[in-house]
């Protein structure tokens, strides 16, 4: 029987299909790994309710465990506590940055409905803070679209939720 650490190490090899530099552990999608007499119990949580990658992620976890010869396990999806970008590990944030996606800022979104609620986001390429939001909603549900006024490159920002 594998140890919890071994299972976690296997899960480190399962990558998010839309952000292929981050593992499901980096992303904070894996909430719990428990091992008892019956087998391994893995609990995962979606980033966004409509995230089309969730089914793929679960399938990828199954394939990985099969590849590693883990037979007795179950995967449970929970909604609460709701996933937040604060759960992305520091290593994960660094990987995002290197991949060209500005990592999320700490904490929850600004809830004011009217007025200027733009945050200062650093360009992942030239690190300038002279950037501008083009759209809240970017190439996937979890990202916003920004452009850097310094290097003129557009980039994705992993938005806070």
């Amino acid at each position, binding site marked *: 029987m594998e140890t919890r650490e071994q299972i976690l190490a296997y899960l480190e090899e399962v990558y998010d299909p839309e952000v292929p530099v981050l593992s499901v552990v980096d992303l904070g999608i894996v909430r719990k790994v428990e091992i008892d007499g019956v087998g391994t119990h893995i609990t995962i949580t*979606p980033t*966004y*309710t*409509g*995230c*089309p990658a969730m089914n793929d992620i679960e399938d990828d976890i199954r394939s990985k465990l099969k590849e590693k010869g883990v037979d007795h396990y179950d995967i449970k999806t*929970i*909604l*609460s*506590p*709701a*996933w*937040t970008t604060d759960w992305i590990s520091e290593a994960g944030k660094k990987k995002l940055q290197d991949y060209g996606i500005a990592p999320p800022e700490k904490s*929850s*979104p600004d*809830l004011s*409905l*009217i007025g200027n*609620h733009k945050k200062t986001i650093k360009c992942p390429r030239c690190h300038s803070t002279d950037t501008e939001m*083009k*759209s*809240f*909603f*970017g*190439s*996937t*549900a979890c990202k916003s*679209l920004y452009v850097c006024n310094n290097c003129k490159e557009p980039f994705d920002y992993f*938005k806070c*939720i």
Partner: protein
Amino acid sequence: MSNSSAANKALFDYLLWLGDNSLVLGHRLSEWCGHGPVLEEDIAMTNIALDLIGQARLYLSLAGDIEGKGRSEDELAYLRDVMFFKNTLLVEQVNGDFASTMMRQFLFTVFNYHLQNAMLTSTNEQLRSIAEKAIKETTYHLRHCSDWVIRLGDGTEESHKRLQDAVDTLWMFTGDLFETLDSDKELIAAKIVPDLKGIRDKWIATVKEVLSEATITIPEESYMMKGGRKGIHTEHLGFLLAELQFMQRAYPGAKW
């Protein structure tokens, strides 16, 4: 609750209403895919559509569990006829121009935002979990459509006129947002769902705040069309479902 099967039926009906609201509006927004006025907005509307369809899945799969007849979220979405859809009339209205889509989005999202916020304290754990998840997305939706309402309303003469026309046309469907069924009373008493009277007060306050910033005039109280939760819909929903359900009707059980 005294009668558990009646209570289950009440919750089932309520969940269908929530799920159908999200499903139908999500489908409407998806119709903009490839037709948005600018690329960013095309992406934004389809992103929001995706969130709404995700929320619909959560509500409808829970509805299926509560009903206990083995109906899945897919069966509820694809194999139910129009008179069994409970969605509020506002969300089934056609897209019209961009101002009209944004106004519909705004009027509904303010409602959804306050409703989901109230459900954060539901005594039903599953409903509370869904609200906790969904409210984060809905907050982004609300900011997005509020921004557009202000930009269009307080924009050019043309954009102002179009947005004012939109609210004048859509206002008659907003009364239906707050329609309740007799069976809701038990759910409210058990603090599973909030009383919509309180939601209405919050809704009108937010709508007034944003529309006044947008220099848009709220229409005077007049005839309100109602009936969504009882399955009495406007003519648009049938056409929408004909498209949404086509594949599963033509090829039942088809899988990707």
